[in-house]
């Protein structure tokens, strides 16, 4: 199968001369972690939400509206041609832990293959074959809804965690990820040390049992626009199933087919 058969068309690029707030607005509006960057019509690189949050940790020097996208973009992710085999893209997404691979024709951006595009296409083929416990990660961080926000925020902003499950005793109350924090950090004169987890928590208390079919996890990811769903067993948080875990399984299934 070729990239052009799976190409996600709904991609909003950001211009290299725009400031990072412009990029962040697009990320928040689309709940996208990565955007392609254009220099005129030419593909120039990608900008990731983690690049933005790195700036936020060093805001004493420069404000985000004074920093251009070009200053923080990455050239790590190389674009592919539409006639590239999709398995190459899946390998890249797994190995580089990126959210998507830009697709160019010549130097012109024509789309992007993202994790959700791969899941949408391949997940039906997993139905009945794998349960959540076959793909989930048992490494998951939890915090109490009553905890202070700052230590949790630092762990996410410094890249140690992507998503933290928030509980009230044993009950899941929601999750917090880097986009949730990015929104909060747009606040004027914010003092994270005076905030608690519940101040920013969305009521997205969705979870899935470890014995459920993996396709149900994907369905919840699309429905709730989340890249990871907490996994429970006997009402206890046992892990998390992420889009990348399922893509790893798709890759393994394809490699061994």
């Amino acid at each position, binding site marked *: 199968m070729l990239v052009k058969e799976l190409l996600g068309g709904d991609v909003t690029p950001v211009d290299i001369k725009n400031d990072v707030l412009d990029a962040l607005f697009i990320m928040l509006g689309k*709940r996208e972690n990565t955007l392609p960057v254009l220099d005129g019509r030419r593909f120039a690189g990608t900008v990731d939400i983690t690049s933005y949050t790195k700036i936020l940790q060093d805001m004493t020097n420069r404000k985000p509206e004074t920093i251009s996208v070009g200053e923080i973009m990455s050239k790590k992710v190389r674009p592919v041609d539409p006639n590239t085999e999709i398995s190459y893209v899946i390998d890249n997404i797994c190995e580089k832990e990126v959210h998507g691979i830009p697709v160019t024709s010549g130097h012109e951006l024509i789309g992007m293959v993202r994790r959700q595009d791969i899941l949408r296409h391949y997940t039906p083929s997993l139905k009945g074959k794998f349960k959540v416990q076959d793909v989930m990660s048992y490494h998951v961080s939890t915090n109490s809804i009553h905890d202070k926000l700052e230590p949790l925020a630092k762990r996410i902003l410094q890249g140690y965690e992507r998503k933290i499950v928030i509980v009230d005793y044993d009950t899941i109350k929601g999750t917090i990820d880097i986009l949730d924090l990015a929104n909060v950090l747009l606040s004027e004169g914010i003092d994270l040390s005076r905030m608690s987890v519940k101040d920013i928590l969305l009521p997205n208390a969705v979870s899935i049992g470890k014995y459920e079919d993996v396709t149900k996890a994907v369905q919840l990811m699309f429905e709730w626009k989340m890249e990871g769903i907490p996994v429970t067993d006997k009402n206890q948080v046992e892990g998390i199933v992420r889009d990348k875990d399922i893509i790893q399984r798709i890759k393994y299934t394809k490699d061994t087919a």
Partner: protein
Amino acid sequence: MGKRVLVVDDEVSVAKTVKFILDAEGFETSVVFSGEDCLKRINSESFDLVLLDIMMPKMNGWQVFEELQKIKPGQKVAFLTVIRYSEAVKEKLRKEGLVDSITKPFENEDLINRVKAITSV
């Protein structure tokens, strides 16, 4: 007939409180509790102002704002949010079409005055 306001907030108590306050001032206020329902209403009805919560599950206020700009360009939207956005952020959002950002919790008088100011233009 009063100006029509659509309040979008997943916190039922907040949405209903805003409706109570604005209805008492002569506005014709409707409430929905999700971004998805907001878009459905906007597709079939006209409102002078959408008061939009940002931190909602499934479809957050940023996503709703972006969709509104696509399906109803020029629709007046004000954020209703616990986040006190910086001036730089608000300035940029104004260019994107946002008319105001009202911070929760709000004083009733302040809410009324700002909604009056927006809808009378």
